[in-house]
């Protein structure tokens, strides 16, 4: 029997749903009920305000496909080697103690009678001899061995919230503030992005990632580059081309309207532009990819396919700056953890390794870093259902040829390293990592993006 989820993660829905009136900010939110970034400023006003921004720059025709196209082309030409950050979310709270198992800790087998790693399984972790890589993480371990992975063995924040919704929200907005409405990457794009390049912030899960929620700069969401097409039955030739333009034009006609019409209009205008940008990547009539990957990715899952498409888009010079997507897999392992965990971990690790090889083969490796994160770790002691409940300190990885490749923070141990609730204490803070990435990778002042940035220790992340 498959394990069950508490499934409240991706609380994308719920209270984040507290809708603000357009342009009037967010209503007060009760403690513990964070809005997802971009809510309130979402559809309705987020997009409309972005449109308004574009309008002020380009005038009345700003939302015509032509204006966005020019914006994308300008952005691509202006900085062809701009750094790219890819945020990969392990949704549900990955059990960090199963990725790097503390087999050398005397309390490990007592806390994990059913779930502990068998003796000798997996491979040694060179930076801490208490820890061993899970066998399913072999490709990640190999990348680490090659110096391309910085490991965060217990990352989080003090007094971690154990709600998927709340903790994930904190990570997305880059602060422990339930009321924050923009993502940390979104705020970066608001500072450095342009009003006419929706590709600068790209969600690859088929819906907008809250980490990319901006106040002004346009961003985009697609499932994958290959299937982004708008075919009309019984329509072809010139009329088809005019139909596509009309679809975007109808959207643009509403983009500055208040409310749902404006939101729908802005999306249509943006979609029209995106369709043009992605034309070269469209699958052919038989569903074959328009691009080829120089390396082999794991088959049969969206996550590796999206990474492969991303590498192709980067290689084509599209002006992509920040990317967000979720890894496949089930991480909210309350019951029968072992059934799915290894498969999920292997798929994730193999896909990330393939992406890294792909970037290297295409000569893009020095342009991109991948940050892999999860909203929290899981409780040190397994529960009664051969699973694990929500915990605190978790794990993250920074992958790339430019990643420094050294562990950040240490594994705190299962004695004093546990807090009063039996959860791992964090030995690095995600806000310090974000600040470090902004400064060392994007050469941007973190103080303008991460509240209280000065107060967080900066790990050395980039070389």
């Amino acid at each position, binding site marked *: 029997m*498959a394990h*069950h*989820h*508490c*499934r*409240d993660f*991706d*609380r994308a*829905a*719920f*209270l*984040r*749903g*507290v*809708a603000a009136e357009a342009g009037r900010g967010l209503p007060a939110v*009760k*403690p*513990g*009920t964070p809005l997802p970034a971009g809510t*309130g400023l979402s*559809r*309705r006003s987020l997009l409309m305000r972005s449109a308004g921004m574009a309008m002020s720059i380009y005038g009345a025709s700003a939302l015509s496909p032509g204006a966005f196209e020019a914006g994308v082309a300008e952005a691509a030409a202006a900085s062809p080697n701009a750094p790219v950050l890819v945020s990969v979310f392990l949704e549900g709270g990955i059990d960090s103690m199963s990725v790097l198992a503390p087999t050398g800790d005397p309390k490990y087998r007592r806390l994990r009678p059913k779930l502990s790693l068998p003796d000798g399984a997996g491979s040694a972790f060179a930076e801490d001899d208490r820890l061993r890589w899970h066998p399913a993480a072999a490709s990640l371990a190999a990348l680490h061995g090659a110096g391309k992975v910085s490991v965060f063995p217990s990352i989080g924040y003090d007094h971690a919230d154990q*709600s*998927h*919704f709340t903790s994930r929200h904190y990570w997305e907005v880059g602060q422990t503030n339930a009321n924050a409405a923009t993502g940390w990457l979104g705020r970066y794009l608001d500072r450095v992005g342009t009003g006419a390049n929706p590709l600068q912030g790209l*969600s690859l899960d*088929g*819906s907008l990632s809250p980490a990319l929620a901006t106040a002004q700069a346009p961003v*985009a*969401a697609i*499932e994958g580059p290959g299937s*982004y*097409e*708008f*075919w*009309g*039955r*019984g*329509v072809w*030739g010139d*009329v088809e081309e*005019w139909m596509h333009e*009309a*679809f975007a*034009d*109808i*959207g643009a006609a*509403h983009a500055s*309207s208040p*409310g*749902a019409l404006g*939101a*729908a*209009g802005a*999306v249509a205008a*943006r979609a029209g532009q995106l369709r043009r940008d992605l034309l070269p990547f469209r699958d052919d009539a038989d569903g074959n990819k328009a691009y080829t990957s120089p390396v082999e990715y794991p088959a049969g899952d969206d996550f590796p396919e999206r990474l492969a498409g991303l590498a192709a888009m980067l290689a084509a010079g599209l002006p992509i700056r920040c990317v967000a997507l979720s890894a496949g897999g089930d991480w909210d392992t*309350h019951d029968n953890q072992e059934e799915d965990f290894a498969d999920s971990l292997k798929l994730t690790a193999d896909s990330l390794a393939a992406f890294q090889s792909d970037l290297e083969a295409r000569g893009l490796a020095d342009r991109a870093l991948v940050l892999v994160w999860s909203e929290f770790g899981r409780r040190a002691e397994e529960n*009664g*259902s051969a699973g694990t*409940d929500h915990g605190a300190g978790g794990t993250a990885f920074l992958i790339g040829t430019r990643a420094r490749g050294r562990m950040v923070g240490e594994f705190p141990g299962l004695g004093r390293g546990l807090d009063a609730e039996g959860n791992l204490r964090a030995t690095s803070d995600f806000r310090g990592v974000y600040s470090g990435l902004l400064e060392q990778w994007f050469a941007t002042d973190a103080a303008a993006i991460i509240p209280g940035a000065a107060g967080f220790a900066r790990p050395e992340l980039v070389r």
Partner: protein
Amino acid sequence: MRMSAAVPATRPRSAATRPARRRAAPALPVYSGPFGEAQAERLLWRAGFGPRPGEASALADKGLRGAVLSLTHPPRARLEGPGPTDSKGRPIAPGDAWGHDHLWWLDRMVRTNQPLVERMALNWHDWFATGDVGATRLNLAQNSLMRRRALGSFSALLTDITRDPAMLLWLSGTENSRDAPNENYARELMELFTLGAARGYTENDVRQMARALTGFTNDWSRGVGPHRFRFEAKRHDGGVKRVFGRRGKFDWRDACRLCLENRAHPSYLVTKLWSYFVPTPPAPRTVSSLSALYVHGRYEVRPVVEAILMHPDLHEGPRLVKPAIVYVAGLLRTRGRPLTTESWTWLSHLSGQMLFQPPNVAGWDEDRWLDTATICGRWKAANTSLQDQEIDTGDQTYDVAETPEAAVSSAIAFWGGPGITPETRGRLLAFSQRCADGIEHRWQQRSYRVLRQNALRMLVATSPDFQTC
């Protein structure tokens, strides 16, 4: 789901433990403006899946009150028109074939004569969002429960959901025993189902409530899968628990009752319910009136829904983005078309809503229906809904003199004459004119008009006007 408004804060815990005080319900305002076809059209989209041909005008004739009551007291359930098939014309197999559970329910949305009941079942599916538990018959049984309880007592619904096999599997209810507590259902019962995050309960209440909810179990056997769901006293923790400051040897029925009696509950329920129908948050006054109506009615949902459907905020307020499955079902319902392909499964997924597969236990994010990805999915859904209806360029009967204006009107009428804003009509007309201007050769006279009409139907169906209601 959407919480349209910040739910009112609760008092400190001691107060939160008392049942809501009974008081006379302040009168709720009723919309008193004109109730014509446009208003009926909105009501049918908000409280259902859009009008079938002729339905908006028939509903308008009843007046607002008659219209709302006809929705909340529907005739005996009937599915009208031909049933769903796969693309080879074979009947669907909801219990067996992957994705056919989705088709099965989508078909009901398209063909039902009880649109509000079906819509409420969808709302409850979002509310108690249960994903695929690996035994489709259990998901379908839960769906039937939600339809049966669609407009009835929330107390009865909550009780039934708490012991519903699909839910017991989804949120680890049968994994929660005296010796091995599992907090999964306890947390969501309060955070998502009855009270709202951090409203009227603490982390300790979660742990204590988990103890109260112990005792369910089920068997599993090869071939049958999970079955024989039951409560076993020996798996139940019979000890004293402290929940919301109250002490007692609480069990699962007490757990439901305690949540219903928590003073944070009524405002949570009515605010959340409101959010399914109206995009703007209810005024505090409205929340307290609806809460009083709910408590006075002993947790009956129907009167609350009636009050919301007659409220001026629904009829005079701003538009709402149609949820993806409502948009998809509406494409077929509006045209009176049956499901004839299993493609509706992935088309719905691309549009952002696959039934029986909510993104998480909080359901779908009602504020994020539209983005550049899902609007592409909606386009594809609209295009598929037109299967076998496109006009052939070889059709020698097509009006070779059709004017741009006539072409636009004809495309709008094709979709049952939905309300279209002047902005959209203007752009449709500009497109229509451009096609006319593009005719350079004699052979294009007819074919361009045919292509234009096919394109106009897509442009109407995907316009911001038709994406919203």
